[in-house]
């Protein structure tokens, strides 16, 4: 019952509650993520100001895993510096790839840790990383030459 176990309360909460699902008034970045195989189509909006993520939100349609992963990510990165957000993206994608993270890195992912089980659900990896890849593209467009993320796009 691998899959049933990922439909936890946290995921269902984020899937249904939708507190991050709206448009921003002044987004500095808009990035659309599309998973053509299953029809997930989510757009991340971010307002970056003075090197910090002032606000973020998303709109679109997707499955419970993709929308919850997006929403949990938004909760996590809001208020963080671009640099810290970059590290979170890197750690999250490493976790999904099945790489061992330090206890500290794992803890910093907070609620997003529950997606660790996706590494054993290859059919749903793209759902759980859709929002994070949008964020990765947004952050890459910032001048972050030191922490440029070079991860496999398929994960």
């Amino acid at each position, binding site marked *: *019952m*691998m*899959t*049933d176990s990922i*439909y936890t309360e946290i995921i*269902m909460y984020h899937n*249904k509650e939708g507190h991050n699902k709206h448009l921003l008034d002044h987004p500095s970045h808009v990035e659309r993520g599309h998973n*053509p*195989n*299953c*029809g*997930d*189509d989510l757009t991340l909006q971010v307002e970056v100001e003075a090197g910090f993520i002032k606000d973020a939100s998303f709109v679109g*349609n*997707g*499955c*419970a*895993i993709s929308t919850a992963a997006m929403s949990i990510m938004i909760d996590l990165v809001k208020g963080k510096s671009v640099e810290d957000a970059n590290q979170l993206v890197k750690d999250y994608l490493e976790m999904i790839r099945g790489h061992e993270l330090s206890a500290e890195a794992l803890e910093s992912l907070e609620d997003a840790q529950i997606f660790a089980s996706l590494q054993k*659900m290859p*059919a*749903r990896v793209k*759902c759980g990383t859709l929002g994070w890849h949008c964020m990765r593209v947004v952050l890459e467009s910032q001048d972050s030459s030191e922490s440029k993320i070079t991860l496999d796009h398929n994960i």
Partner: protein
Amino acid sequence: MNEKALESAYRAHFPVFRVHPDLIYLDHAATSQKPLSVVEAIQNQMVSENGSPHRGAHQLSVKSTEIYEGGRQQVMAFIGGLDPREIVFTKNTTESLNLIAYSYGMTFLKPKDEIAILISSHHSNIVPWQVVSQKTGAKLVYLLVDQEGKLPETELKKINERTQIVTFPWVSNGIGTKLEPRQLIKKAHEMGAIAIIDAAQVAGHERINVIELDADFLAFSGHKMFAPQGIGVLYGKYELLDKMPPFLTGGDMIEYVTCFETTYEAVPKRFEAGTQNVSGVKGLVAAIDFIEQIGLDAIKTHEHKLTQYMMMRLKELSFITIYGPETLNDRGALVVFNVEGIHPHDVASILDDHGIAIRAGHHCTQPLMQHLGLTATCRASYSIYNSERDVDDLVKALYKVRQVFGYDD
């Protein structure tokens, strides 16, 4: 609930269910499971009959040629053909359709010509024509279906004297609607166009007769009708195939090659470049034998009953929306639906945990989905190895899907 429903008597023919005894396979429209007779035929060919066809004088090469060319005869008979030269072996339906697009479309279409495509076509019958359109300047015209996937008669007016090609799926894999192909073929011919039929969801489900249909081209895959993946068929009228240039070039499709010029083999070998998939043909022939032994009428009856039962059971669930036609005769062996409040991908994942394999997504029919205003759907498709028991289990599991999402039905 029908507690007495039994598993299908045909299930025993399929070794996959010995390895996965609890598997409920409702993804036949994507690819079929394989009967033991097909597996054994391929094994036998690989063990004792393997040689390169069409070349070499040794016995195994001769045997291989016999299997390959004998297979052509059997495929011809299976679809009611009269001339084995009209059967071209390909990899699958997609390659068959690409062959027509690249060889016929690129050669004969001109600017202002029109290609009429049924909007419910699979991507494999849309994207190649987009490429042809971009290269030749021919215009794509879509024939629009209604909410049930049926073609209103008024749409036929879009087929006119500029139309050179009319192409459509006999049964739509995206919504399950079965069309009356003769109506479209007749209209195409009246306007001087050729008609192409994607029969991927029909082959192995009911009798095909290319002569009665008067089809110009008809394409299908082996793997959706109990044969292995990697073998497909293109039927084409000889006079059309004969005037078409090769699609792929190289070995086996040539007569004389000099440094700068080549003369090509006659039809159908002109379209079969390189060493061919003889074990695939062997498996396809075994699949045809399997189908003929059970009988296409028996297969159709079995599937028809399942369609009826599945529609009835799913309609009992207030949280299910079924798409496609109401009338059974207008349906192929698949039912497309959505579960209220739950994305199809989540539905499929949770069903998978209960041993039930369905397809979720756009089913390679994005233009159809856009036309119908859908983003994704669930698809349960079936064959002789399925039974009413499978439908009952699907219904039970759908309640569980709803429970996981906090619904109390």
